[in-house]
């Protein structure tokens, strides 16, 4: 199989049921919005390849069911993810409060150095807003995570959110790659091992990534 990309990043969308995870993904992968979305059962993913500083970056973005009950199943897919979008709905206070629980969930199930970002979705519904932008920013500062408000419906900030997350992952990966090529920086982390393998055997990148 010919290599059509330089990097493959596995990303994950998590957050309460109905906050718009699937809509965000659909907006990003198809540049479209459907008024009658259905709830996600189980798990699915979509792919989009973007261009970052001259490198082709293939984003494999996993979309999960939001209800707490299904977490035992969905967390199985956290493994190997390099970036996580934590999504809440600005018109739903509870979904915002739950972001803390989702962060804890990540700490328990994802690798420690996973890049994170908080998205306050549905910001087009100003009249129904329950969570101010300031509170979102405050939470982000508290956890030292980047934050942005989005609207999948109006295509607001969805692109830049994914680009930002991908850029951060790429920067982190390249830093580790550099450290790895430097004998002083010994092998210390999953990304670095992946990076090494990718340099040696680019064609096996996909299968290796999914096994990790």
């Amino acid at each position, binding site marked *: 199989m010919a290599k059509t990309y330089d990097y493959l990043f596995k990303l994950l969308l998590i957050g309460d*049921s*109905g906050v718009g995870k699937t809509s965000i993904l659909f907006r990003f992968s*198809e*540049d*479209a*919005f*459907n*008024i*009658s*979305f*259905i*709830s996600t*059962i*189980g*798990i*699915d*993913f979509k792919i989009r390849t*973007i*261009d*970052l*500083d001259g490198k082709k970056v293939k984003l*494999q973005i996993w979309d999960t*069911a*939001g*209800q707490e*009950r*299904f977490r*035992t*199943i969905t967390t*199985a897919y956290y493994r190997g993810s390099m970036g996580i979008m934590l999504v809440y709905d600005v018109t739903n206070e*509870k979904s915002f409060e739950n972001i803390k629980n989702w962060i804890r969930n990540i700490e328990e199930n994802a690798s420690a150095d996973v890049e994170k970002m908080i998205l306050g979705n549905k910001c*087009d519904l100003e009249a129904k807003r329950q969570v101010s932008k300031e509170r979102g920013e405050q939470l982000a500062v508290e956890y030292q995570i980047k934050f*942005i408000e989005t*609207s999948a*419906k*109006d*295509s*607001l*900030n969805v*692109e*830049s959110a994914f*680009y*930002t997350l991908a*850029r951060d992952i790429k920067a982190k990966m390249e830093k580790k790659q550099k450290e790895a090529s430097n004998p002083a920086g010994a092998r210390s982390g999953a990304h670095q091992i992946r990076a090494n393998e990718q340099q040696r055997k680019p064609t096996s990148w*996909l*299968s290796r990534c*999914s*096994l990790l």
Partner: protein
Amino acid sequence: MSRSSSVEDLPEQCKDLFTQDGVLLKACLGRPVTDLNSIGMLCIVQNQDNSKTIEWRPNDLITIDSDTQDQEWAVVNTIGRRQRTLSGNITSDYATARARIIKIPIEELKTFRVTRNNQQMQFSTKPGVWQTTFYFQHGNAEIFVAYLKNHVKTAKTRHDRNTYVVVEPNIESQVLNKSFAELDIFTENTTDVVWNLVSNFKQRPYETTMEAFSKLTDIVYYGNEGMNGKRDVSEEVVDLLTKSMNAMEEATTVTKSDEYEVISVKPTLPPRPSIPRGTPLSPEKWWALQDTEGRITEVEGVKQLIFRGGVAHSIRQCVWKYLLDYHPWHMTSAELKALTKKKTEEYFAMKLQWRSMTEGQEARFSEYRDRKSLVEKDVNRTDRTHPFFAGDNNPNLVILQDILLTYVMYNFDLGYVQGMSDILAPLLLLLGNEVDSFWCFVGFMDKIASNFDMDQAGMKHQLLQLQQLLTFASPELANHLAQKDSGNMYFCFRWLLVWFKREFSHRDIMRLWEVLWTSLPCANFHLLICVAILDAEKDILISKDYGFTEILKHVNDLSMCLDVDKILSTAEGIFHQIMSAPHLTDQIRIILGLPPMSTSTSSHSGSDAPTTSKSETNGTKEDQRTGMFGQDMDEDTLEYNGLQICIVTKTVWALLA
């Protein structure tokens, strides 16, 4: 920050059902060249009178704003390939721009086609002329087609598979009813059945035999005016069975010596019999099954027929209440009337419990509030593309929500779990009545309650059982999945949680569900449905060496591409393969609801029929409850030449005795 969406700019009465950005206008009859090659969005719009229109809007109508959103990020914009479709300033050319909107009323749409690798889409409202041509920047026209197909019924043309002809501009539920009626074609008479059997079994011994069994059930149950009583039939049965068995022996021998040789060290399953599906249970048969007081007689026979061919659409409303344990089979019409009254009162009493809750109470009752909020979120996204649930303020959505909230009061501990609205929607669609739908939903939930366990233990258990069945029935595939880190079968989660609701159209899911509700031919037949679907994909999954992610994608993408009758037939074939495997293990027997070998008593029934043995099965909970026909359900096994055929109906064998 001032923003305004494209939707809000348009008159209130129109609503965008679907929008897709990055679509260029390439050609349009009657438009100036200057209008062409401009970028915009293609939408499906619902008008005030509920008619729908395909609309293309140029971006300058809605766009123009700079990328202020990116400034917050201070990132270099490398996006490039996508255009901003959103925006802030409405230009003074607004009115001019409005005039450039292209509208194609869906009612007038005759054909459309997708060409150039999903990059181009053309529409026609007049035969022979493609009036408008659009170019999809991202090469994803198939997405638009998929959503458009929710609103129009199409057929592909014979000579060009990329061209779709609009058969019916607005899909209505009557379409379904009509096609169900068309399916119901039970016209054969008994003489034909016998004649066909004799002429067919030489060519297709196994199928002919199986077909004969299903037809014989019909003869036995539904009268054979031309003959005098059962004795005549029984003689024929003996005769036909003997003949077909002889033919099977011949065929088997020929196959072994001439056509192929199988060399294998592993135990393999016997060849898979191809078992034809029957015709749906017809209204005539159904009404004939009721005694003078309205009791349903021959329950096992009815279930056999439903298992084999489903239920004719016109009597589903009635039959489903029995299959879902709302109406007990043995009740008279008078008793059912009393039951309905009682259940109606019970339902409204439970409904009143949440209806009478004051705002203050609700505010202090977080557990109820949480459940309610989940219900509300899901009701708004359940089957909204179906006409029955489409549109704002649809009264059917209110009923859907009321039933689910009442169910929360009925079973507060279980509460509401995602997937339940999917289970309820087809029931409400069919039954139309709030109380009936609620009690049928309760019956369905009783069958699949473990799917919704808090710890998901029921789902995990089923996924494990599925893995074990697959290992037995299709070891090569099971091995491939294990190697690809997919042995936990999580990719089948959606199938099992809502019993394939997301994989089939409403029409097909009704058929599949009613067949599964019969609990025939064995326990956990729904797992064999999974095995059947996977087995059909085996070659692709293995030959393309699909890994963890591709397996999941491939399985998810099978949605709406599956043939329900073919799958049912394959699953039954696999069931017979498993049952006749010499190496059948207790693990598999238990999954299928059979007693383990160690305790199984294999005593001869004392019947005169040669080479038959009869073993008792403990049946499923379901079978034990329906005691009309016998204390429990008997499974008769006919062994021939190493091949076992299980006939679940007692009647055929009773005839042989």
